[in-house]
């Protein structure tokens, strides 16, 4: 059985507008705090190494996803990584056309699980998987302890 009456004139329907408001402060966590401080203060990119199974993780994690043990060894990421995938964005989040296309990449590092999704600092035509890239950091004075302390990755 369905409802015994149904309004067919859409102008008779009312709606109530509103928005869900909230502000958030996210901690970066125990592993994350170490990563961002190292990035901000020393310009170094750290990962972690699980003593139990030997796997290395970027970004660093407090625990090894694979063997579920606590991880306490921090190791420096190699200076060069390789682009695993690219994407070129030409529209913004609300569907508005972007003044300049944005080039994004997933960058992986030899010997490490994971990697970074970040800007690829090349022209869209030059963006392709396989590129060997290095992190380009903001100058020391402008770094705040955020992922944006990395400007992007460039060949």
């Amino acid at each position: 059985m369905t409802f015994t009456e149904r309004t067919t004139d859409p102008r008779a329907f009312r709606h109530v507008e509103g928005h869900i408001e909230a502000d958030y402060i996210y901690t970066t966590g125990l592993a994350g705090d170490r990563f961002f401080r190292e990035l901000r203060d020393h310009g170094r990119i750290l990962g972690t190494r699980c003593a139990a199974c030997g796997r290395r993780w970027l970004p660093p994690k407090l625990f090894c996803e694979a063997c579920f043990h606590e991880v306490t060894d921090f190791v420096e990421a190699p200076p060069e990584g390789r682009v695993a995938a690219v994407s070129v964005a030409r529209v913004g989040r609300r569907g508005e056309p972007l003044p300049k296309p944005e080039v994004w990449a997933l960058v992986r590092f030899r010997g490490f699980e994971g990697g970074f999704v970040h800007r690829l600092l090349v022209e869209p035509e030059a963006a392709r998987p396989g590129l060997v890239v290095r992190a380009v950091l903001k100058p020391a004075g402008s770094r705040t302890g955020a992922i944006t302390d990395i400007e992007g990755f460039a060949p």
Partner: protein
Amino acid sequence: MTARIEKWPGVELGPKDLEGGTVTTVRSRPDARFAWSAGEAMSRFLAELQRGRLIGRRCDGCKRVLFPPRMFCEECFRPTDAWVYVRDTGAIETFSVSYLDTDARRIAEPILVGVVSIDGAAPKMGIMHYFGEMTKDDIRIGMRVKAVWRPPEERTGSVLDIRHFRPLREGEG
């Protein structure tokens, strides 16, 4: 054995750590906007409020008049059968005297708010609303009350078309 566990994990932060940035953090504000459809029953409910009337729906299965109205009876689990106007008088089922506003800020003059069961609807059926023209010492469960409506030109089709419920006077309702 837990009795012998010495180290319980967790690193405590104080408010200055989180908001003052002694640990690294990321800030974000989602931008989620909504237009909630009132649906079949509530659209009529809001339209009637704008006309200065309260309306419910009757379920012929359990013979209750449901208020606020709904197109299905959640007890019998069948569609409801007819529109029925209800009165704008009722009784206070419960209330609170609030010194907090919606953002949890303290306010000096308390808000009197509670649930009012509406005459003509099934027993105990009601809505939440403000109580006015009474003090925090006057208000009590069981008090008979009547809606105070905004003037017609100020009504928009909202529960706020009623300003508050006030004590019922001698000879009314």
